Protein backbone atom coordinates (compact mmCIF):
# COMPACT_ATOMS: atom_id res chain seq x y z
CA UNK A 1 0.00 0.00 0.00
CA UNK A 2 1.56 3.35 -1.01
CA UNK A 3 1.12 6.26 1.35
CA UNK A 4 -0.12 9.84 1.20
CA UNK A 5 1.86 12.92 2.26
CA UNK A 6 -0.62 13.26 5.13
CA UNK A 7 0.52 9.84 6.45
CA UNK A 8 4.10 11.15 6.50
CA UNK A 9 3.05 14.42 8.13
CA UNK A 10 1.13 12.51 10.84
CA UNK A 11 4.40 11.06 12.15
CA UNK A 12 5.82 13.61 14.61
CA UNK A 13 9.40 12.92 13.51
CA UNK A 14 8.63 14.07 9.93
CA UNK A 15 6.38 17.06 10.72
CA UNK A 16 9.12 19.67 10.41
CA UNK A 17 10.44 18.42 7.06
CA UNK A 18 10.22 20.46 3.87
CA UNK A 19 7.17 19.55 1.71
CA UNK A 20 9.42 18.12 -1.02
CA UNK A 21 11.13 15.84 1.51
CA UNK A 22 7.74 14.65 2.80
CA UNK A 23 6.71 13.93 -0.76
CA UNK A 24 9.91 11.94 -1.40
CA UNK A 25 9.30 9.95 1.78
CA UNK A 26 5.70 9.22 0.75
CA UNK A 27 6.88 7.87 -2.60
CA UNK A 28 9.46 5.60 -0.96
CA UNK A 29 7.24 4.27 1.86
CA UNK A 30 4.76 1.46 2.36
CA UNK A 31 2.35 0.70 5.18
CA UNK A 32 2.70 -2.64 6.97
CA UNK A 33 0.21 -3.98 9.53
CA UNK A 34 1.07 -6.62 12.17
CA UNK A 35 -1.17 -8.56 14.56
CA UNK A 36 -0.39 -8.70 18.30
CA UNK A 37 2.28 -11.25 19.30
CA UNK A 38 3.68 -11.44 15.76
CA UNK A 39 7.46 -11.58 15.70
CA UNK A 40 8.12 -9.80 12.43
CA UNK A 41 11.87 -9.59 12.68
CA UNK A 42 14.49 -12.05 13.97
CA UNK A 43 17.93 -10.93 15.06
CA UNK A 44 20.82 -11.46 12.62
CA UNK A 45 18.51 -11.56 9.59
CA UNK A 46 19.36 -9.28 6.71
CA UNK A 47 17.91 -5.79 7.17
CA UNK A 48 15.30 -5.21 4.47
CA UNK A 49 13.60 -2.04 5.66
CA UNK A 50 13.58 0.81 8.14
CA UNK A 51 10.36 1.06 10.16
CA UNK A 52 8.47 3.93 11.77
CA UNK A 53 5.64 3.16 14.20
CA UNK A 54 2.34 4.82 13.17
CA UNK A 55 0.19 3.23 15.89
CA UNK A 56 0.37 0.40 18.40
CA UNK A 57 3.46 -0.85 20.16
CA UNK A 58 6.18 -3.47 19.84
CA UNK A 59 9.02 -4.73 21.93
CA UNK A 60 12.64 -4.95 20.73
CA UNK A 61 14.56 -7.77 22.37
CA UNK A 62 17.72 -9.79 21.97
CA UNK A 63 17.93 -13.52 22.57
CA UNK A 64 20.93 -15.00 24.35
CA UNK A 65 22.33 -18.41 23.35
CA UNK A 66 20.32 -20.09 26.14
CA UNK A 67 17.07 -18.40 25.10
CA UNK A 68 16.89 -15.60 27.67
CA UNK A 69 15.36 -12.36 26.43
CA UNK A 70 16.91 -8.94 27.06
CA UNK A 71 14.40 -6.24 26.24
CA UNK A 72 16.19 -3.33 24.63
CA UNK A 73 13.28 -0.98 24.17
CA UNK A 74 9.53 -0.69 23.72
CA UNK A 75 8.53 0.93 20.44
CA UNK A 76 5.59 3.34 20.61
CA UNK A 77 4.07 5.66 17.98
CA UNK A 78 6.62 7.98 16.44
CA UNK A 79 9.62 5.76 17.20
CA UNK A 80 11.68 4.05 14.53
CA UNK A 81 13.92 1.01 14.19
CA UNK A 82 16.55 -0.54 11.89
CA UNK A 83 18.12 2.81 11.07
CA UNK A 84 21.48 1.51 12.37
CA UNK A 85 21.70 -1.74 10.33
CA UNK A 86 20.31 0.11 7.31
CA UNK A 87 23.42 2.29 7.31
CA UNK A 88 25.92 -0.30 8.40
CA UNK A 89 28.03 -2.39 6.01
CA UNK A 90 27.18 -5.58 7.94
CA UNK A 91 23.50 -4.92 7.20
CA UNK A 92 22.12 -7.48 9.70
CA UNK A 93 19.42 -6.52 12.20
CA UNK A 94 20.55 -6.53 15.81
CA UNK A 95 17.41 -7.70 17.57
CA UNK A 96 14.02 -9.40 17.32
CA UNK A 97 10.86 -7.29 17.25
CA UNK A 98 7.45 -8.46 18.41
CA UNK A 99 4.17 -6.56 18.13
CA UNK A 100 2.44 -6.35 21.51
CA UNK A 101 -0.72 -4.74 20.17
CA UNK A 102 -2.17 -4.23 16.67
CA UNK A 103 0.72 -2.46 14.99
CA UNK A 104 0.83 -0.18 11.96
CA UNK A 105 4.23 0.66 10.49
CA UNK A 106 5.54 2.91 7.80
CA UNK A 107 8.38 1.01 6.15
CA UNK A 108 11.07 2.21 3.77
CA UNK A 109 13.23 -0.31 1.88
CA UNK A 110 16.90 0.04 2.85
CA UNK A 111 18.11 1.13 -0.59
CA UNK A 112 15.53 3.91 -0.84
CA UNK A 113 16.23 5.01 2.73
CA UNK A 114 19.93 5.47 1.94
CA UNK A 115 19.08 7.45 -1.18
CA UNK A 116 16.71 9.70 0.80
CA UNK A 117 19.42 10.48 3.38
CA UNK A 118 21.89 11.33 0.65
CA UNK A 119 19.52 13.55 -1.26
CA UNK A 120 17.58 15.33 1.54
CA UNK A 121 19.68 16.99 4.25
CA UNK A 122 16.67 17.69 6.48
CA UNK A 123 15.76 13.98 6.58
CA UNK A 124 19.38 13.10 7.40
CA UNK A 125 19.42 15.69 10.20
CA UNK A 126 16.30 14.42 11.99
CA UNK A 127 17.54 10.83 11.79
CA UNK A 128 20.88 11.95 13.29
CA UNK A 129 19.11 13.84 16.07
CA UNK A 130 17.17 10.71 16.93
CA UNK A 131 20.37 8.64 16.85
CA UNK A 132 21.78 10.93 19.52
CA UNK A 133 18.77 10.29 21.79
CA UNK A 134 19.02 6.55 21.31
CA UNK A 135 22.75 6.53 21.95
CA UNK A 136 22.03 8.27 25.23
CA UNK A 137 19.47 5.56 26.10
CA UNK A 138 21.97 2.80 25.34
CA UNK A 139 24.66 4.43 27.47
CA UNK A 140 22.15 4.46 30.32
CA UNK A 141 21.31 0.78 29.72
CA UNK A 142 24.99 -0.19 29.72
CA UNK A 143 25.45 1.77 32.92
CA UNK A 144 22.57 -0.09 34.59
CA UNK A 145 23.74 -3.52 33.42
CA UNK A 146 27.42 -3.11 34.15
CA UNK A 147 27.52 -0.91 37.22
CA UNK A 148 24.50 -2.14 39.17
CA UNK A 149 23.75 -5.57 40.58
CA UNK A 150 20.40 -7.25 39.83
CA UNK A 151 19.33 -6.13 43.31
CA UNK A 152 20.15 -2.52 42.44
CA UNK A 153 18.52 -2.74 39.02
CA UNK A 154 15.34 -4.23 40.47
CA UNK A 155 15.20 -1.53 43.16
CA UNK A 156 15.55 1.15 40.48
CA UNK A 157 12.92 -0.56 38.32
CA UNK A 158 10.42 -0.73 41.21
CA UNK A 159 10.99 2.95 42.05
CA UNK A 160 10.53 4.02 38.43
CA UNK A 161 7.38 1.94 37.97
CA UNK A 162 5.90 3.06 41.29
CA UNK A 163 6.29 6.67 40.21
CA UNK A 164 4.85 6.01 36.76
CA UNK A 165 1.39 7.57 36.85
CA UNK A 166 0.40 7.68 33.17
CA UNK A 167 1.29 4.21 31.88
CA UNK A 168 0.81 2.00 34.92
CA UNK A 169 1.04 -1.62 33.78
CA UNK A 170 0.70 -5.04 35.43
CA UNK A 171 4.01 -6.91 35.44
CA UNK A 172 4.91 -10.56 35.83
CA UNK A 173 8.24 -11.70 37.24
CA UNK A 174 9.15 -13.07 33.79
CA UNK A 175 8.60 -9.68 32.17
CA UNK A 176 10.67 -7.89 34.81
CA UNK A 177 13.45 -10.46 34.37
CA UNK A 178 13.46 -9.82 30.61
CA UNK A 179 13.66 -6.06 31.20
CA UNK A 180 16.55 -6.34 33.62
CA UNK A 181 18.56 -8.95 31.73
CA UNK A 182 18.19 -11.73 34.28
CA UNK A 183 15.95 -14.74 35.00
CA UNK A 184 12.69 -15.10 36.86
CA UNK A 185 14.13 -17.03 39.84
CA UNK A 186 16.50 -14.19 40.65
CA UNK A 187 13.65 -11.66 40.48
CA UNK A 188 11.51 -13.83 42.79
CA UNK A 189 14.34 -14.22 45.31
CA UNK A 190 15.19 -10.53 45.26
CA UNK A 191 11.54 -9.49 45.69
CA UNK A 192 11.32 -11.81 48.73
CA UNK A 193 14.51 -10.26 50.12
CA UNK A 194 13.03 -6.76 49.69
CA UNK A 195 9.83 -7.88 51.45
CA UNK A 196 11.86 -9.35 54.31
CA UNK A 197 13.87 -6.12 54.59
CA UNK A 198 10.64 -4.11 54.89
CA UNK A 199 11.19 -2.18 51.66
CA UNK A 200 8.12 -3.44 49.81
CA UNK A 201 5.07 -5.52 50.52
CA UNK A 202 2.91 -7.66 48.29
CA UNK A 203 -0.82 -7.48 48.74
CA UNK A 204 -3.96 -7.72 46.60
CA UNK A 205 -2.20 -7.89 43.26
CA UNK A 206 0.20 -5.06 44.05
CA UNK A 207 3.81 -4.64 45.00
CA UNK A 208 3.75 -1.60 47.27
CA UNK A 209 6.90 0.39 47.95
CA UNK A 210 6.72 1.12 51.66
CA UNK A 211 10.25 2.41 52.22
CA UNK A 212 11.33 4.61 49.32
CA UNK A 213 14.56 5.74 50.96
CA UNK A 214 15.64 2.17 51.65
CA UNK A 215 14.91 1.17 48.07
CA UNK A 216 16.87 4.19 46.77
CA UNK A 217 19.84 3.06 48.83
CA UNK A 218 19.58 -0.38 47.23
CA UNK A 219 19.55 1.30 43.82
CA UNK A 220 22.82 3.05 44.77
CA UNK A 221 21.48 6.58 44.68
Amino acid at each position, binding site marked *: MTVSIQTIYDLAIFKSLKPESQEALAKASLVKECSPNTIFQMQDERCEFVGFVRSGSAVIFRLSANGNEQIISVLTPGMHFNTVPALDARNNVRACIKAISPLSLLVIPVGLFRTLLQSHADIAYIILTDFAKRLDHLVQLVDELSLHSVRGRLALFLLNQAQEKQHSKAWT*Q*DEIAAHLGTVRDVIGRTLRAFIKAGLIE*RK*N*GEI*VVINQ*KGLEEEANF
Partner: protein
Amino acid sequence: MDQSKKLLMKINASLCVHCGACSYLCATGTIALKGTDPTVDKPEQCTNCGLCEEICPTGAISLPFFIKLQANALLGIS
Protein backbone atom coordinates in the same frame (compact mmCIF):
# COMPACT_ATOMS: atom_id res chain seq x y z
CA MET B 1 -8.07 -2.12 44.89
CA ASP B 2 -10.10 -2.40 41.72
CA GLN B 3 -7.24 -3.02 39.29
CA SER B 4 -6.26 -6.28 41.03
CA LYS B 5 -9.71 -7.74 40.31
CA LYS B 6 -8.69 -7.95 36.67
CA LEU B 7 -5.41 -9.73 37.43
CA LEU B 8 -5.45 -13.49 37.24
CA MET B 9 -2.62 -15.95 37.21
CA LYS B 10 -1.53 -17.34 33.88
CA ILE B 11 -0.69 -21.04 33.68
CA ASN B 12 1.77 -22.05 30.98
CA ALA B 13 0.69 -25.61 30.18
CA SER B 14 3.90 -26.36 28.29
CA LEU B 15 5.97 -25.76 31.44
CA CYS B 16 3.64 -27.58 33.88
CA VAL B 17 4.92 -30.90 35.24
CA HIS B 18 1.53 -31.74 36.85
CA CYS B 19 2.93 -31.96 40.38
CA GLY B 20 -0.30 -30.52 41.83
CA ALA B 21 1.52 -28.29 44.33
CA CYS B 22 -0.40 -25.18 43.23
CA SER B 23 -3.86 -26.67 43.79
CA TYR B 24 -2.76 -28.39 47.01
CA LEU B 25 -1.49 -25.15 48.53
CA CYS B 26 -4.13 -22.75 47.20
CA ALA B 27 -6.02 -21.70 50.32
CA THR B 28 -9.10 -20.47 48.46
CA GLY B 29 -9.58 -23.31 45.98
CA THR B 30 -9.00 -20.96 43.05
CA ILE B 31 -6.78 -23.53 41.34
CA ALA B 32 -8.19 -27.02 40.91
CA LEU B 33 -6.87 -30.05 39.07
CA LYS B 34 -8.81 -31.32 36.11
CA GLY B 35 -7.25 -34.72 35.71
CA THR B 36 -3.66 -33.71 36.31
CA ASP B 37 -3.98 -30.26 34.69
CA PRO B 38 -4.19 -27.23 36.98
CA THR B 39 -6.99 -24.86 35.96
CA VAL B 40 -8.31 -21.59 37.34
CA ASP B 41 -11.56 -22.95 38.73
CA LYS B 42 -12.89 -20.12 40.88
CA PRO B 43 -11.18 -16.92 39.73
CA GLU B 44 -13.39 -14.72 41.90
CA GLN B 45 -11.91 -16.37 45.02
CA CYS B 46 -8.28 -15.54 44.21
CA THR B 47 -6.69 -13.26 46.81
CA ASN B 48 -3.51 -12.68 44.75
CA CYS B 49 -1.42 -14.10 47.59
CA GLY B 50 1.23 -15.28 45.12
CA LEU B 51 1.75 -18.68 46.78
CA CYS B 52 0.98 -20.67 43.62
CA GLU B 53 3.57 -18.71 41.67
CA GLU B 54 6.14 -19.08 44.41
CA ILE B 55 5.66 -22.82 44.90
CA CYS B 56 5.57 -23.80 41.21
CA PRO B 57 8.87 -25.65 40.62
CA THR B 58 9.00 -24.92 36.90
CA GLY B 59 7.81 -21.30 36.78
CA ALA B 60 4.64 -22.30 34.92
CA ILE B 61 2.45 -19.89 36.90
CA SER B 62 2.74 -16.11 36.50
CA LEU B 63 0.77 -13.73 38.65
CA PRO B 64 0.77 -10.16 37.30
CA PHE B 65 0.95 -7.27 39.75
CA PHE B 66 0.90 -3.49 39.71
CA ILE B 67 3.70 -1.54 41.35
CA LYS B 68 2.65 1.32 43.59
CA LEU B 69 4.18 3.81 45.95
CA GLN B 70 2.64 3.98 49.40
CA ALA B 71 1.68 7.52 50.41
CA ASN B 72 4.09 7.65 53.35
CA ALA B 73 6.82 5.54 51.71
CA LEU B 74 9.25 8.45 51.80
CA LEU B 75 9.21 8.27 55.59
CA GLY B 76 9.86 4.53 55.55
CA ILE B 77 6.85 3.81 57.76
CA SER B 78 3.95 1.61 56.81
